[in-house]
């Protein structure tokens, strides 16, 4: 690791102020992704602001009948929360499909949203990567890109977002609460949080420098059959090739978001509208603009079949 200085913040305002003082700083919470990247010198922050003492680790009901999840709630605790298991099953399922027990015990709600891609060319500092070194090119395009994005990618980057949790948050219409370095707060919809790569794949979210996520809010429960289906190369502890987060209502209507196919959780209104007509119709909309590569074209039929399986299960 490159050397860094370290401080602990005691409140969100303190953390924001620290970030304002040290624009090159990174927040550290669980650290399970950041420290991995720091060891590889993919991330080289000169300063770390430890936010673990911010007391943002509770899950509270909202006035609207939803849940407000503190940014520091660990993945294990969120997945195991009785209200989440009962009313937001797709979220519990997605969390439990990700990482390992050890990692889920440390990884936080906010950190999970902000984790970086596992594109092997991003991880290999000898390779060109516009995300890691803007302007250097993309080794994944034309490389071995079986794991990469099939839709929403660009000439600059075909990486995917690795999170399972974020896919469930997307289908649940979660909102992200933040505080900026100067102290202003705002709410960002999960749909807006992550950016498509475009020509700046290094800019992954709409968060400003030093902006800190304080909570993720879920709207009131929508019921239905809630499912998360993850397809991967081994049965556990692997990132998704494709994943499907779906909420299916008794009348056949519903919502669906895909993981493993794009730079962000992939959900389209036009695809949701096709839910009563089945997986083929939904996949047709989700992949209308798909540009798969030779290696990852399998993801299109795989996602459609995973969705068909989910819909069959939802019908019981």
């Amino acid at each position: 690791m490159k050397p860094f200085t370290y401080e602990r913040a005691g409140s969100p305002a303190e953390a924001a102020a620290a970030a304002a003082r040290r624009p090159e700083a990174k927040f550290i919470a669980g650290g399970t992704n950041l420290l991995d990247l720091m060891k590889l010198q993919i991330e080289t922050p000169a300063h770390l602001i430890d936010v673990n003492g911010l007391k943002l680790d509770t899950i509270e009901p909202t006035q609207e009948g939803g849940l407000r999840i503190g940014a520091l709630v660990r993945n294990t605790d969120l997945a195991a929360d009785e209200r989440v298991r009962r009313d937001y099953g797709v979220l519990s399922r997605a969390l439990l499909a990700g990482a390992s027990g050890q990692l889920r015990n440390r990884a936080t709600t906010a950190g999970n949203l902000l984790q970086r891609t596992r594109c092997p060319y991003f991880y290999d500092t000898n390779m060109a990567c516009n995300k890691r070194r803007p302007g250097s090119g993309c080794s994944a395009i034309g490389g071995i890109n079986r794991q990469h994005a099939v839709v929403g990618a660009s000439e600059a980057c075909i990486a995917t977002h690795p999170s399972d949790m974020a896919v469930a948050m997307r289908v649940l219409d979660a909102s992200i609460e933040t505080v900026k370095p100067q102290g202003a707060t705002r709410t960002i919809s999960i749909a807006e949080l992550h950016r498509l790569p475009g020509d700046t794949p290094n800019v992954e979210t709409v968060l400003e420098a030093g902006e800190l996520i304080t909570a993720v809010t879920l709207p009131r429960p929508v019921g239905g059959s809630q499912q998360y289906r993850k397809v991967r190369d081994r049965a556990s502890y692997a990132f998704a090739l494709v994943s499907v987060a779906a909420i299916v209502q008794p009348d056949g209507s519903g919502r669906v978001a895909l993981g493993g196919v794009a730079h962000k959780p992939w959900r389209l209104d036009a695809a949701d509208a096709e839910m009563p007509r089945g997986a083929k119709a939904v996949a047709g909309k989700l992949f209308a603009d798909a540009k798969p590569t030779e290696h990852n074209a399998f993801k299109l039929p795989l996602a459609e079949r995973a969705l068909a399986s989910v819909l069959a299960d939802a019908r019981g």
Partner: protein
Amino acid sequence: MASPPQQELRRRSMIAAAATTAAIGTVPAALAQSSAETPPEAAKATTLKVSFTVNGKPRDLELDPRTTLLDALREGMNLTGTKKGCDHGQCGACTVLLDGRRINSCLTLAVMHPGADITTVEGLGTPDRLHPMQAAFVKHDGYQCGYCTPGQICSAVAVLAEIEAGIPSHVTTDLNAKPQLTGAELRERMSGNICRCGAYSNIVDAITEVAGSKA
């Protein structure tokens, strides 16, 4: 008077050190994964103090902030039972219990844990008084080379506590029911501990025996 070279870290205290410091103190720079590119002028060291409990014993350490909990245990406290496998959170050899919960000690900084209660494999049992999980691994031959074993055992102890606490897993059929103690549950929950010798079936047997004796 010049400020002391080693400052106590308090909440809000900012360590006013150059970004390019090399390390001295309990853990040498090389162990904190210092880059060979660190310029020589960065010889001024800043270490941080942190105090926590390891296996019931209070420990006060002064560390380069880059020191992982794993390196602090192995190199700073000579607790070499906890193993370094991949050092990237992929193998589970470094699993320890932090305030009763299993974590990868390679993916957290020691200075992030003031006041914590840490248990390593050395704290579970001793050669004369084995923890039931240690005894079961011996009985069922739950290893071959043994390198992953301390992590497997720490993880297994935590897995049983997690099932007891009602924490669901990826293979739990009903999210709203108490998880069952099945082979499928144990295999899923232990997936963060890799055994390259492939002792998995014996590991499941060992954990199953301990779980059964508790029931």
